[in-house]
């Protein structure tokens, strides 16, 4: 799909450009994130098949944590084409190899509102379902912190779809209401193995996104060995595959109160058939619901909170449960803009608290997926110039994860890191 998809996208771009006599507007935005991290976690991070919950392993590490570009062409009739490319370059220490590819490619069409304030928006292509309330900066970067929460690190790692989204919005301004209402429904394919990485490395926190068609490694555990229940599983998971040709869906509702914030709720179900396996990649029946709010208490204080809870199921060809997990994660974050104290809008501080868990409901030997943990993030950002932001962030995770025993590590582990970053937005 990768090369074909990009080629189709480019062909369509040229086609629309030729067909459409109206002027097109090209825009290019993006982010470069240079980072220094002092990590106290594990000798291998989850990105290189270890148990560390951060992007990098122990020590003082340098990395380009993200180089992303968000390119779009917009025509006057409401149609636009978007391509997002991300690169994650090899960091020092046990950093994974450099990778670059598309993360999203889609067409978007937005109608004008009707006289009664109804508007329809459609997205077709490869995109993130509308779930994260943190990753709304260019190229899906998180806005207030360097590391995304465990919920949105997982969304960035395993939730991506090839599909069509229809979103109906009722604008309040045409109805003398102070709020807008939106309902969206997405039908999708190519997200069948999702749930595998969450099961096998647990909840993690970083700014890494999985690139389209990218395979991701996970820690070793005994059930992968010959003769064991998961011997047929490939050593890398390929989350954006279609295994069983069944269409999944995501629905979401949002209530947005003007100048205050929003409340949203949604449900995702990939409707995968859990006992089908192709080339070592299983279909995992993954379902979850999510709740979110963003609320501005006053000009200085904004709350963002999300809750996600669901299950995932993977079975043998005999339809016996091999992995059957329930998982939940929640965070609450407060961002303070130092407008009054320092007299400008250049400083922001964020505190985020998280609680996460995975409950393993199956009896598969050598594959314990249970997990329980809490995380704390303290972040401060200073807008140095118009385009450069300097950030300092402290991340703390305390987790209980029995699977660490398989690789002779402490089941109860406290991981900490301090990060300094210079982020350039364009």
């Amino acid at each position, binding site marked *: 799909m990768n090369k074909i998809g990009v080629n189709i996208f480019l062909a369509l771009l040229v086609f629309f450009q030729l067909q459409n006599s109206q002027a097109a507007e090209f825009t290019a935005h993006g982010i470069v994130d240079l980072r220094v991290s002092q990590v106290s976690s594990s000798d291998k991070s989850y990105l290189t098949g270890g148990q560390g919950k951060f992007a990098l392993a122990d020590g003082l590490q340098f990395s380009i944590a993200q180089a992303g570009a968000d390119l779009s062409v917009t025509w006057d009739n409401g149609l636009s084409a978007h391509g997002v490319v991300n690169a994650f370059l090899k960091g020092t220490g046990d950093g994974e190899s450099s990778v670059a590819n598309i993360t999203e490619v889609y067409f978007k069409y937005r109608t004008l509102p009707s006289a009664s304030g109804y508007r329809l928006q459609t997205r077709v292509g490869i995109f993130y379902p509308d779930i994260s309330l943190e990753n709304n900066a260019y190229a899906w970067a998180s806005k207030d912190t360097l590391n995304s929460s465990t919920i949105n690190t997982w969304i960035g790692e395993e939730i991506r779809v090839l599909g069509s989204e229809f979103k109906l919005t009722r604008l309040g*301004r*045409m109805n003398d209401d102070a709020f807008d209402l939106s309902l969206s429904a997405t039908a999708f394919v190519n997200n069948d193995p999702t749930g595998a990485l969450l099961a096998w490395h647990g909840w993690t926190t970083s700014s890494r996104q999985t690139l389209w068609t990218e395979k991701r490694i996970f820690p070793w555990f005994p059930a992968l060995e010959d003769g064991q229940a998961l011997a047929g599983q490939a050593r890398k998971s390929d989350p954006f595959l279609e295994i069983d040709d069944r269409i999944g869906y995501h629905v979401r509702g949002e209530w*947005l109160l003007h100048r205050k914030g929003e409340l949203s709720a949604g449900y995702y179900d990939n409707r995968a058939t859990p006992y089908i396996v192709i080339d070592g990649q299983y279909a995992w029946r993954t379902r979850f619901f999510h709740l979110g709010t963003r609320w501005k208490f006053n000009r200085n204080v904004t709350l963002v909170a999300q809750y996600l809870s669901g299950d995932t199921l993977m079975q043998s060809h005999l339809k016996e449960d091999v992995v059957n997990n329930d998982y939940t994660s929640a965070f609450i974050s407060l961002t303070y803009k130092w407008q009054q104290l320092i007299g400008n809008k250049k400083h922001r501080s964020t505190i985020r608290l998280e609680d996460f868990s995975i409950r393993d409901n199956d009896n598969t030997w050598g594959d314990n997926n249970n997990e329980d943990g809490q995380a704390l993030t303290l972040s401060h950002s200073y807008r140095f110039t118009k385009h450069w932001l300097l950030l300092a962030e402290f991340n703390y995770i305390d987790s209980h994860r029995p699977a660490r025993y398989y690789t002779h590590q402490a089941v109860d582990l406290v991981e900490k890191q301090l990060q300094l970053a210079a982020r350039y937005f364009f």
Partner: protein
Amino acid sequence: MLLTLLLLPNISNANTCNNKTEINTCVQVFVKSKTGQELGDLVVYLEPLDGQVLDKSHKEVVVGQRDKSFTPYITVSQTNSKVNFVNQDNITHHIYSAESENKFSFKIRAGTTHSLTQFDQANEIAMGCNIHDWMSGYLLVVNTPYFDKTDELGQVSFNLAKKGKYKVVVWHPQMQAENNRMIMEQDITKHNTFTFTLKNELESIPTQESDDDFEFLSDY
């Protein structure tokens, strides 16, 4: 307060009928709230009722977009005048009116001007931006060259070229009255002063401001 007092004479000269050398008939209109406070930025216009033939207004009509808001919030224009939309931002806007009689939409690039000339009927036109949903502005099209907005002292004045009967109207999109306006019919023969006192407080004017002031958001 001191500053206000110092500025007072100048401001009142601009919008009052103090100029005794004026040969035309001068009409001064005051608009006050229910509690007697002067109200600025309300539209006042005088429509001829005796068939007086009046010259067309030569005022330049500008609907600005600045800091992702309609600036000013309210623009007034005479029918069949050219209305200039001026985008002072460094991003594109997608201006529209969704009402059936006055439906229009166009994209306007950073720093450019887009002119519309199709407004041949008196009407109030609510406008939005399809990229920035919080943007909200009004264009009031009136059938007279005598239109203006009240100053911060709640006053406005007109030099009328023709005497006779006029409909004096005060309008604001947030006025809690029938058709968002108050109307007096007056025979104007000499210098006249009219005062409108609103029966209800104005509803709150929507703040044209995004919920999120972070500049590098990927949204639409």
